[in-house]
């Protein structure tokens, strides 16, 4: 009887550690896949951002450069916000419960 109880405890502990391990590694891999997917979906905007930065560099110290720099910063902030929102949306869609926040977005509510 004692051996049976000890066996049950030992195998339960092993299953529990497997559970912790899978949740820890699984959530991290799932997040990487989601981030890569969202980055691929937003590739056109990322290229536009690079072009805008390149254009801003070409104008030296002129007024156009300042305007392009401002435009670049606005575009970059919007890009980051949209990227984080899209990743957060996909995290919720895939029910990854381990992640309670992404960037500035709280997912626990």
């Amino acid at each position: 009887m004692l051996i049976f109880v000890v066996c049950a405890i030992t195998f339960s502990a092993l299953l529990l550690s497997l559970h912790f391990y899978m949740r820890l590694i699984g959530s991290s891999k799932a997040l990487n896949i989601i981030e890569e997917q969202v980055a691929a979906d937003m590739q056109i905007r990322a290229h536009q951002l690079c072009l805008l930065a390149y254009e801003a560099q070409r104008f030296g110290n002129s007024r156009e450069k300042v305007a392009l720099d401002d435009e670049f910063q606005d575009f970059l902030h919007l890009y980051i916000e949209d990227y984080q929102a899209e990743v957060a949306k996909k995290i919720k869609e895939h029910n990854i419960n381990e992640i309670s926040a992404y960037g500035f977005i709280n997912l626990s509510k």
Partner: protein
Amino acid sequence: MGTFITTLAEYLWVLCICSLLLSLIWPASKSARVTILILALSGLAQDKIAPLLMDISETSPELARLIWYPSWVICQTLTLGVIWFAHRKFVWAVEQITQFICLSLMMHSFLQVLRFTDRVVLGTDVLGGIYKYGIPAINIAAILAICLWAVSGAFRYRKELEEC
């Protein structure tokens, strides 16, 4: 080689704490630092538990044999649980070194259960050698990875400072 492994295993936690201290001089991630700290504390706790189990084996060898392996499996499970809980609570991204440490803890548990099944459940007693050198070898692999991570991080940080 076998003696070398068991002798080296006794000094592993010193290396682990030294690596943790080294990681304080460069901006390492919290995930890695906390996981290494949990691993070091768990290792020290296990070093304290081992003599107690040895004492039990003097009075009741049968009982000691029965609780020896489950004790280590429970210790590893608790360690993994604390690491998982910390990452979940503070929303940390799981670092590569954290993944490696968790894998080593998992392998540790698996080997303990395998030996428990071999010695207590089936009574075959064929995995003695694998257990004797397997457990210290897993610990050595984890601590070496931590040392490499700490040293390479420090060198990378120094290089970045020189470039600035």
